[in-house]
């Protein structure tokens, strides 16, 4: 994206509620924002370290449950609960990273799936804490000073701030020494290690930041839908994140944003034409087609089509 293009996107995002007349459209924009945070989070692992986490919904769910439980049971206010959700998800990321990043490729995928499976079973069976399959209704709306962010427009700006923050965190990370180390490890791990890049250290760091961002997305989701149930651990969420990252362009900063907007708006637009099952079916087919015809994603393809832009 050129500098001017970037500013155009920022201005469009800031003024979006003025253009969107219907609350439903604002709702779609909010969901796109939450998924943008999640997609950026997954992209840190999948795109920059090359390790696919198929248990990413676990970190999302941990964030959602932490935030919901703290505000409901301990009556914390939104902001400390948000911070705790980010912190706890990050801690889970540290744990999984320390344990699972000894493994690579398929084995890492399997450990992350299993971790998500266990956490999901805990949310279903740990009824005293989580209320089991019935879930936790009545999660309070966030408060900002004297205001309660009840309107969709207000929540949109909260989510937009989270998207911007996540983007800046990712950019800072990716363009630093850490990001270069991650890419070096992805491209050739023995070579990177031979020049002194500590693989475990950097991969775990990426896992922590990635999990923390997913926790942020989870907390925002919980306080927006005001309801958390074991469905937050559904594999569908992980699949959606993977599609967004792969379609947008893994290992690019703007790819997950493009993917998130595309795959939130498109299904909503097609909702009248096709049922949810058809959409999931086409996600599967699309993933196969992407691997065959657009393996690097939309953003790198556009960048190649318009040289001079990045």
């Amino acid at each position, binding site marked *: 994206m050129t500098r001017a293009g970037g500013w155009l996107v920022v201005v469009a995002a800031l003024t979006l509620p003025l253009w969107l007349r219907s609350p439903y459209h604002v709702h779609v924009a909010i969901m796109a924002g939450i998924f943008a945070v999640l997609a950026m989070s997954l992209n840190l692992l999948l795109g920059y370290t090359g390790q*696919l986490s198929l248990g990413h919904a676990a970190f999302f769910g941990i964030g959602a449950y932490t935030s919901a439980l703290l505000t409901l049971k301990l009556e914390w206010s939104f902001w400390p609960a948000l911070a705790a959700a980010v912190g706890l998800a990050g801690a889970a990321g540290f744990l999984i990273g320390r344990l699972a990043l000894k493994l690579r490729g398929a*084995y890492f995928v399997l450990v992350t799936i299993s971790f998500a499976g266990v956490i999901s079973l805990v949310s279903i069976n740990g009824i005293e804490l989580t209320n089991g399959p019935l879930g936790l209704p009545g999660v309070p709306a966030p408060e900002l000073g004297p205001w309660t962010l009840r309107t969709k427009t207000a929540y949109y700006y909260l989510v937009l701030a989270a998207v911007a923050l996540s983007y800046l965190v990712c950019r800072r990370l990716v363009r630093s020494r850490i990001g270069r180390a991650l890419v070096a490890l992805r491209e050739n791990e023995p070579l990177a290690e031979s020049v002194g890049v500590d693989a475990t250290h950097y991969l775990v760091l990426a896992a922590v930041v990635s999990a923390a961002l997913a926790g942020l997305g989870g907390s925002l989701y919980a306080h927006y839908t005001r309801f958390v149930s074991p469905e937050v651990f559904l594999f569908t969420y992980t699949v959606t994140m993977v599609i967004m990252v792969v379609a947008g362009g893994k290992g690019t900063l703007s790819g997950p944003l493009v993917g998130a907007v595309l795959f939130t708006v498109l299904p909503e637009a097609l909702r009248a034409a096709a049922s949810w099952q058809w959409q999931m079916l086409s*996600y599967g*087919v699309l993933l196969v087609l992407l691997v065959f015809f657009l393996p690097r994603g939309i953003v790198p393809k556009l960048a190649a089509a318009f040289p001079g832009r990045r």
Partner: protein
Amino acid sequence: MAELLQHLLNGLVLGGTYALLGIGLTLIFGLMNVVNFAHGEFYTLGAYVSFAALALAGVDFFAALAAAIAAGAALGWLCEIALLRPLRNESIDTTMLVMIGVWIAMQNAELLGWGGVAKSIPHPFPTAPLVLGPVAIAPLRLFVLVLAAGLIAASWLLIQKTKLGRAMRATFQDRDTAALMGVSIGRIHSATFAFGSGLAAAAGALLGPIFLVYPSMGDLASLKAFSVVILGGLGSLAGATLGGLLLGIAEELGAGYVSSGYRDAVGFVIIILVLLLRPSGLFARQERIA
């Protein structure tokens, strides 16, 4: 004591079908280097074919099982030809993404075709359990156990005693050398994927009448197959058989003595622990197949 024996017997019935799932997956994983996340969908396919054959077409149990295996193998073969063969020289991550896509597509196609409501497969066996000393077993479960054992034995014969099996073992040991010796790698890969998918479909057709049939049943089946492969080591038929039995028994014991809500957690915990503590599997002999 009687309770323990009963759990062990129930575990054996589950374990036999888990072993079938695991054998299919370990061959595909070990020989083709493809992480087949769609494996459980062939299990689901087998269960639905068996449902259609028994409940709708009204054929007998053996014909239904044969139809399930044939459908699984045919679709597996098609899948290999159309999707995996063009990507044979791509990285393992690329084919993994493709198989994740196949998984999602197949599952939702089943959801569209059959609806989300679980179906039970009618079977001709009496429901009164056979009492064998301290333990009791439903005739259907005994039948499933015997059939699973038969299929495992047949797989072993195929790998050990046939020309195709020898070519498969050669390909597992060294693909390039096998190719130089005149083994058609493309054909071996197709045969392996069809064979593994057929076994998964057989497992679905066998367990379908015991449990219920529903579109997302393959998710857990995939993960259980992966736990079996991880327990048994890559490409090892004996390992997969032992791993399957071990997982079945561990699940029964976990459900019986710990908490039935966490039955499915056993497989997850096994994946995590074995991968972290002994990544090559409990019975691994990496250099061998079968």
